[in-house]
């Protein structure tokens, strides 16, 4: 039971608002030591896993080119492109993006879009411009709400599309784990069961986008 102290520390530390980096370090030490490991053993495990997971941070390599494009006016161009098409509402834009993200993720194309690649430089400015084209300049809280919804749409799209792809990590993990337990399955047998949830995710998040769009397209009272 004592080893759950580290888990509790993470929950409380994030809730109270301590710096997450320090919370993670303290939690790792507490958890490892509660399980009877020395601080040095815990530190070595932590360092080894950190080094093995450097691939997570490779996505930051797109930032120099995104920065150059933003310097040359990419966000402004994305805005004026959308502002030129008055028929493109924020709801159409985000539902279209959601469908695009789910379909391409289902084909295994996870990294062609993302928070750094598409949301910040393209989709978020487009979503803001789609609202501004209808109601005029928007205030900061509304701008932030639009950005948050745009980021959420990217995550929902990729999470509930990728499992339809046969060779994605989560499907391979399930195949591997089940075979250890004596249940032999093909990836396809698992991935077809991701389709109903993918459709439900599109319906639920798409419905929310429509309601969100109606609220945004009303002028500020």
């Amino acid at each position, binding site marked *: 039971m004592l080893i*759950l102290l*580290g888990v509790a520390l993470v929950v409380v530390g994030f809730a109270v608002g301590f*710096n*997450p*980096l*320090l919370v*993670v370090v303290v939690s*790792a030490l507490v*958890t*490892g030591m509660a*399980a009877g490991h020395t601080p040095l053993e*815990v*530190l*070595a495990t932590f*360092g*080894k896993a*950190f*080094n093995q997971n*450097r691939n997570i*941070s*490779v*996505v*930051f390599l*797109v*930032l*120099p*080119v995104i*920065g*150059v*494009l933003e*310097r*040359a*006016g990419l966000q*402004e*161009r994305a805005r*004026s492109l959308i502002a030129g098409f008055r028929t493109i509402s924020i709801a159409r834009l985000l539902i279209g993006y959601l469908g695009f993200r789910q379909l391409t993720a289902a084909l*295994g*194309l996870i*990294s*062609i879009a993302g*928070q*750094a*690649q598409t*949301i*910040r430089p393209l989709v978020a400015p487009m979503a803001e411009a789609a609202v501004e084209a209808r109601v005029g300049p928007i205030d900061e809280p509304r701008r*932030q709400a639009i*950005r948050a919804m745009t*980021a*959420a749409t990217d*995550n929902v799209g990729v*999470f*509930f599309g990728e*499992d339809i792809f046969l060779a994605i*990590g*989560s499907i391979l*993990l*399930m195949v591997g784990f089940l075979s250890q337990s004596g*249940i032999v399955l093909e990836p396809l047998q698992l991935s077809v069961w991701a389709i*109903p*949830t993918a459709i439900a995710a599109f319906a639920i998040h798409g419905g929310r986008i429509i309601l969100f769009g109606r609220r945004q397209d009303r002028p500020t009272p």
Partner: protein
Amino acid sequence: MIKLSFVFIVAGLIFAAYAVLSALDKTNPKRWRNALFWGLFAASFLAGDHFGDLGNGVLVVALAVTAGVGTLGRGEPAGPSAAEKHASAARFGNGLFVPALVIPAVVLFGSLVGKHMHMGGGPLLEPKQETLISLAIGAMIALAVALPLLRQPLGAPLQEGRRLMDTVGWAALLPQMLAALGAVFTLAGVGKVVGGMVAAGIPMDSRAAAVAAYCIGMAAFTMITGNAFAAFPVMTAGVALPFLIGKFGGDPAAVCAIGMLSGFCGTLMTPLAANFNVVPVRLLNLDDRYGVIRAQAPTAIPLLIVNMVLMYVLAFRAHG
């Protein structure tokens, strides 16, 4: 063969450049702290395989302390004004999208065609790493296209890259640190304890109760570890195999697939899934550190309920 380790070296050199540029940036009052942070990050990419496990552990703690005790500054390299950017946008028009589309085009090519290409008797790209390598190559090609096409100065990629990295700040480190925390949780056996508690604490006397325990357990355990992959073996061994599949005869494929997706509903609601829920908050300059999670939870909760219904209906068809 182009290996992932080559990508790490490129990343290391870029972060090293951010460190040098930070140190030279007299407008940033915390320039030495930023230089140290990006310098340590660079060291991890350049030489992480040579530090040993303990050395890497010390490196991570040094990174966490640099960014966590006190705060990093934000470099604001001089650049064009808003009016100049508007003029530039009008001048280049849709040509601005060309380099942005190069990245997905290269990733597409690399993951579909590149993985079958060979060079000197071996594969051209390191197997299983084709996508990440393609992403890195795509970013470099996009840069090579953008600089002449958009008449940008040669120093712009590193200065603008540094500006964006400083915007992300400490959050850049969090996804990798949380993955490392997951490894410590595994070492300590946190999963077994939680799985045992769920199996012992919740009565599994009906199919509905077992479905709810598995799906909610997957979502909840994913929220406290930040990763559905960590939750899956624990909850499946603790609840799905003995009860849903063993006792109630559920179809293992449907049970496990929908269980994993229930975990993904948890991923939408936890700050521990930092690359999805924290990094965008920084990239989009949101004031609310949980702004993205707040936008996702009203989708995640109904979807979790739908998953339970789907599992209840679809996984037990053989038994009516």
